[in-house]
């Protein structure tokens, strides 16, 4: 399995741990993911400003992957949703495609939407599969309650992403359950974390994050698990701001899925960048036990 690895600008901005944990996990699982230096921002923030600039940004990335005949593997929900959306509309609207390709041609690039975009959760769940992954685990968690946060753009708009059932998704929960953790059911699970308006409308952003955190804590979660750098920033840095400015009870730390899985694959906390989280997640290791026979708790059907 070989991919062009697409990290997110937000990872580069301040989430070294998502970089390191992803590389470590991919290496352990024997997935080759090339860092293509030419990749640029997927264009997500540009969409608020200029539609064409947004399309051009993602089209360029698709063209770069296409040139190397590689599919894109991304670790960010927003990048995933955007790359898939652009890939879709360029196929549908030939006039737009021609315009974009005229600009790309100046660099010797061309986009035919041939490169597929995959999210790391998709590759882990669909391409490798739970059974195969289970065989690779060295340890599993015990008595650990995880609030699984899907994030928005991996599920919606479902006609574009086609990752999972948008109203009753299971895949991320199954991946979490695989590690032996118990994915709790919580009401606001599928809500947006509020990151898109962080820095724009902080009150709204913090309101939304706070609601989710309260609900997850009520459901008994020990940690949040996310699959997107924006969500991780929100639940790590913005939660810290919420605690600082609004006061709050105990924080609910968040970690990215590759960190959760990585621990069970036997990778070290250093490889997974665990010390770089603002709200500490080091404590999750106390839930690690020997690998249990059946792979841990059964997956609770999320509701």
């Amino acid at each position, binding site marked *: 399995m070989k991919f062009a690895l697409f990290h997110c600008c937000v990872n580069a*901005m301040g989430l070294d741990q998502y970089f390191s944990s992803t590389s470590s996990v991919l290496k352990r699982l024997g997935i080759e993911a090339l860092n293509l230096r030419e990749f*640029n921002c997927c264009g997500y923030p*540009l969409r*608020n400003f200029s539609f064409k600039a947004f399309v051009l940004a993602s089209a360029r990335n698709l063209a770069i992957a296409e040139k190397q005949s590689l599919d894109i593997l991304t670790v960010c929900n927003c990048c995933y949703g955007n790359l898939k959306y652009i890939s879709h509309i360029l196929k549908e609207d030939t006039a737009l495609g021609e315009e974009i390709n005229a600009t790309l041609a*100046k*660099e010797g690039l061309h986009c035919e939407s041939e490169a597929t975009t995959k999210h790391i959760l998709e590759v882990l769940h669909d391409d490798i599969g739970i059974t195969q992954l289970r065989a690779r685990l060295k340890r599993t968690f015990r008595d650990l309650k995880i609030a699984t946060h899907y994030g928005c753009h991996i599920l919606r708009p479902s006609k574009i992403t086609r990752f999972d059932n948008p109203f009753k998704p299971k895949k991320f929960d199954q991946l979490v359950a695989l590690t032996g953790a118990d994915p709790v059911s919580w009401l606001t699970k599928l809500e*947006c974390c509020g990151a898109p308006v*962080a820095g724009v409308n902080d009150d709204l952003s913090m309101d939304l994050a706070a609601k989710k955190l309260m609900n997850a804590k009520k459901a008994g979660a020990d940690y949040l698990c996310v699959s997107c750098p924006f969500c991780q920033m929100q639940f790590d840095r913005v939660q810290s701001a919420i605690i600082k400015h609004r006061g709050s009870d105990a924080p609910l730390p968040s970690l990215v899925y590759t960190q959760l899985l990585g621990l069970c694959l036997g990778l070290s906390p250093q490889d997974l960048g665990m010390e770089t989280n603002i709200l500490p997640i080091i404590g999750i290791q106390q839930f690690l036990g020997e690998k249990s026979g059946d792979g841990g708790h059964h997956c609770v059907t999320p509701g």
Partner: protein
Amino acid sequence: MFYSMSLYISLALFLLGLVWKISTWFRYRLGIEANQIPTSVRIIEAAGGVITTLFSIKILILLKVFVLEVILQARTFREDSYRWLMHICIYGGFMLLLVMHGLSRFTAEIIFADYYSTVNPFLFLRDLGAMGVIFGLLLALLRRFVHRRWRPRTNAMDLYAILILAAIMVSGILLEGVKIVSPAVFRNMAQDYLTRPDEEQIRSLTSYWVKELGAVSPGLQGPFDSKTIEEGRIIHEMNCMQCHSRPQWAVAGYAVSRLIAPLAEDVDEKGLPDILWHLHFLACFLGLAYLPFSKMLHVFTGPLVLMINTVMNHDSATPANLATRQMIELDACVHCGACSRRCSVAVAFGEIPNESILPSEKIPSLKALAAGKTLSPHELRTIQQGLFLCSNCNRCTLVCPVGIRLRDLWVSAREMVVVNSVPEPLLLSPFSLYRGLTYGFNGQIQYRKPLDFVRNAVTGGSSMDHALDSSSPLYFGPKKLLSNLSASIQAKTFSDCYVCMTCSNACPVVRNYRKPNEIVGLMPHQLIYAIGRRHWDLIFGSMMLWDCLGCYQCQEHCPQNVQVADILYQLKNIAILRMNDKSV
């Protein structure tokens, strides 16, 4: 006499320029915080920083950086081996020439007892250095003007650097070539250095030189008889060989001399040796005098910045030292374009014609701002947009060959630029995430003001009161926008809406408020409805457009497959266009 005078004048100009430049490192400032720090504090803190560093273990790190980054330029090599080769040739060749040729009086002449500029290895190395520089300059020209894929932007400073080096090298090689063939030069040398300069001796020597060593003598041409040549050889070995290796070793100069050999007499007639000598040293002195004001200052500022940024603890450094460092950084930029090549959002330049989107093109504006110059409204708008159209991924910093912390420069400049009265719509996008993180989402005036300003500007400052007042009439706007929306990829599905209100009920923003209309203006279902009825003032006056998360709950729940979230994106884009042009 003229030589000494011009040397001293250019040296004086160079030193004065350097002093002035260094003073600007403590006087200029970028950023609101830096503005508050007096120059005296900047100088004192810098001195303190330098002393503590030099007398600490950090000096070992400085040495390592000096070898790896300054001499070997490892950063550049990792990023772009072509650019590394180009620079190593120029810099290596130039250093060789500067130390062993230009400053030979202080180096080679002292170290090597039998030094003469025309003896090997010095003779060959001089030409090697010049050829290295010229080769590097050719690579530079290719890179800047010919390469198809990525051509960095080139300005007057870049051209000057290439031209002054070319002038020095070319004049030097031409001078060499001219001196090799000049009959007058040869004659003078023979008369000065032969123990017994009688005509017979000179003729034999000249014959030997013409046959073997490339000299030209009018009236003395081959074929020569072997006795004359043998005599000449003996004279050469006794009087000349000590100082003269075969001129063929001056590869470049010798090649030139072959080209101009047929015109040797004209060379003397036109006084070329003297002219070229003057051109050569004047070019060198011009380069020296102008150095502090040109791109060549990077020979000092580049290493300085590389070393500072390796040992400076950016979290604990004082604001004064951070401010000073930024001024040195601005002078270390060599406009190589590596940052622009790797910039994550440079792709937007393909659609938005603002050069300041490119990191390398932001630097000149920042220099002007730091110097306290007043920018024109257009320049301000341009640099402001460029500063905020940035994903803050920090790739620019990682690839900069001199290690400038570019993102920190953008952050410092942003706040001082955005206080001017031009609203910045890019603030209302996820580009603001980093700004929020840097400020800690603290809601302070300084932080909120530009946000509130642009929110007001983009909504036309209209209040929702009149819309919520059911007694006041609604305004029906022009139809042009309606047809635009019907044709647009993002918005065309609006006409399928049957106002079931599911979208607004699914919206987490709407559900965050007890009285949503008061906070967000029109709710999603109302926005869609208002499109069909052309209530543009209500639509673009709604904060909902900018509070929208783009989470797609609305679109996912819509029973009619109306692409609600996409429509809101289209409305956002139009709102920004309308900020500058109401007729859109």
